[in-house]
């Protein structure tokens, strides 16, 4: 298969963006979900809605507000550019920040569900064996939540791969800086280059499918078949 240098660059950029976003979200998402699962305040619902918002909000709306926030024409954008050293709009850093917000629910929701289901029981059991709360999180709750963590990472990664609306709004299509695969694909179609569009689309399809399969395999919990094998001697 023959993929152009520009498209390869777009692919590499997209993978980098997805990887950085997933990593950042893992670091943010675990403590956030842990805190939320414990938090008994009326503000909890508000915060949960806020986190879920990117799930239902049209990406262009999110992108529009971020564009305003990052814009050097506004005080906020000037301040951010001052802190970071360069304008965030139309930059890779800007894309990362946008992706983190955009994919936040895909990381936090599975973790929150898993923590809420097992968290209380397991942290109580850990505390009743003398384990302090941080040890209960790291050594008990995280290993028990492995399937949820793997699937949260896979969803976040895949979701960031397919990002389009937000990127269009705040990133534009600067090759090597902000031109991700979905944008490159769109541009090929616009230019009636169906061959190149086909190749990119196929790559994205294959990568995403492989990723989800890998996640299923990594995140597999102990299955019913294994139980059966152990107790009945029937190979699962």
């Amino acid at each position: 298969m023959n993929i152009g240098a520009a498209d390869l660059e777009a692919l590499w950029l997209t993978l980098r963006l997805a990887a950085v976003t997933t990593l950042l979200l893992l670091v943010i998402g675990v403590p956030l979900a842990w805190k939320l699962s414990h938090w008994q305040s009326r503000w909890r619902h508000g915060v949960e809605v806020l986190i879920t918002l990117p799930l239902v909000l049209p990406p262009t709306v999110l992108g529009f507000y971020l564009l305003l926030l990052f814009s050097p024409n506004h005080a906020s954008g000037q301040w951010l550019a001052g802190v970071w050293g360069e304008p965030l709009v139309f930059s890779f850093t800007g894309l990362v920040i946008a992706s983190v917000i955009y994919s936040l629910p895909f990381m936090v929701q599975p973790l929150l569900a898993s923590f809420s289901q097992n968290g209380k029981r397991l942290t109580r059991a850990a505390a009743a064996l003398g384990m302090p709360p941080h040890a209960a999180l790291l050594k008990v709750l995280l290993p028990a939540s492995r399937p949820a963590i793997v699937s949260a990472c896979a969803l976040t990664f895949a979701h960031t791969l397919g990002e389009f609306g937000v990127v269009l709004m705040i990133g534009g299509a600067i090759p090597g800086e902000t031109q991700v695969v979905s944008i490159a694909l769109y541009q090929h179609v616009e230019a009636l280059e169906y061959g190149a569009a086909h190749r990119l689309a196929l790559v994205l399809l294959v990568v995403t499918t492989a990723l989800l399969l890998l996640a299923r395999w990594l995140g597999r919990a102990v299955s019913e078949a294994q139980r059966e094998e152990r107790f009945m001697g029937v190979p699962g």
Partner: protein
Amino acid sequence: MELSLPLFRRAIQSLDCDGLSVQGLVTSLNADTPWELALPAQGIFGLTGPSGGGKSTLLAALAGLRGCAGKIGFGGVAWQSGRRGLATHRRDLSLAFQDSSLFGGQTVADNLALAHRYSRRPLAPEERAELIECFGITPLLRQPVELLSGGEAQRVAVLRQLFSNAAVQLYDEPLAAVDRLQVIRKLLPRLRAFWARHPALVIWTSHDFDEIQLLATQCLWMERGALNGPLPVRAVARRLQLDSLDRESCFSRIEARVLSQEEGLLTLSLGDATLYADRVAGRYKVGQSIAFLLGSGDIGLCLEQPGLSSILNCLAVELREIVPLAGGRVRLRLAVGEQEFSADISRLSRERLQLREGERYFAQFKASSLAGL
């Protein structure tokens, strides 16, 4: 400002007390009947009573895992004072839950290692290996905990708590799913030996009174949110055996003194009589006082002293009471000196032997029927 003297004295007393002291402890379950409890720093205490009586609630409140108000102190450390409580992991205690609550996504060995790592009194490697072997966990060490059966999970949970070796050990129906004979013949004697070596305050909750009378000499009783005791186990046993007349058989606790032990055969003295127990798991010292259980279905009765027989044990007993059971059987309450035990025989045997309350007979049972040694 004037200091209220009685209150002050009470506070000092609770600090002086070495063991566990609970004063005016109130939860949502017992708003009208505050719990009062004073237990020594070492000893094994049973906790029993009807379901919904508040046993689990009491244990959770002691561990600081549910909202409560009042005073709890152990060894001079205030665990709870009013509504403010010390965090659970800072209390020198461990609690095993009814559902085992093993740590998922990890193996049995991982679970045990975590308990060992956070223990305040870690056990030596040889002792850990021996306990694992004795609890039958060795073949399970590499298994993910999700693959365990209910009984296996409970054995691992109890072992995990032994590895933690806390000063106060709370057990909430910890072996309910484990085979009853395995519990009585193997696990409980091993637990008793463990606590003899590592003294702790143990509260053992169970619906199975046999477990309690084998482990403990005193017992707490909870009913409809009210906490009573500690009471002598024998008093509670009487009452429970009358309650459980429909059950197939029951165990009675008997205490005796060790005369000698060789090659698994233990010789005991009970009053004037000598008893024999074979297939004995534990190691005992000569002169030591020990307790065992005798199943009511394992005892036969004779009118006269029997001659030589392969049934090694024969006790002169007084028949105190005859209670009819369902299914054509009767339960006899027999006494040797101060100690009492139950024997179930058929109604036909009773008529043939013409048994009468107040008369003296001979009770026979095999050396293999002494459980819990």
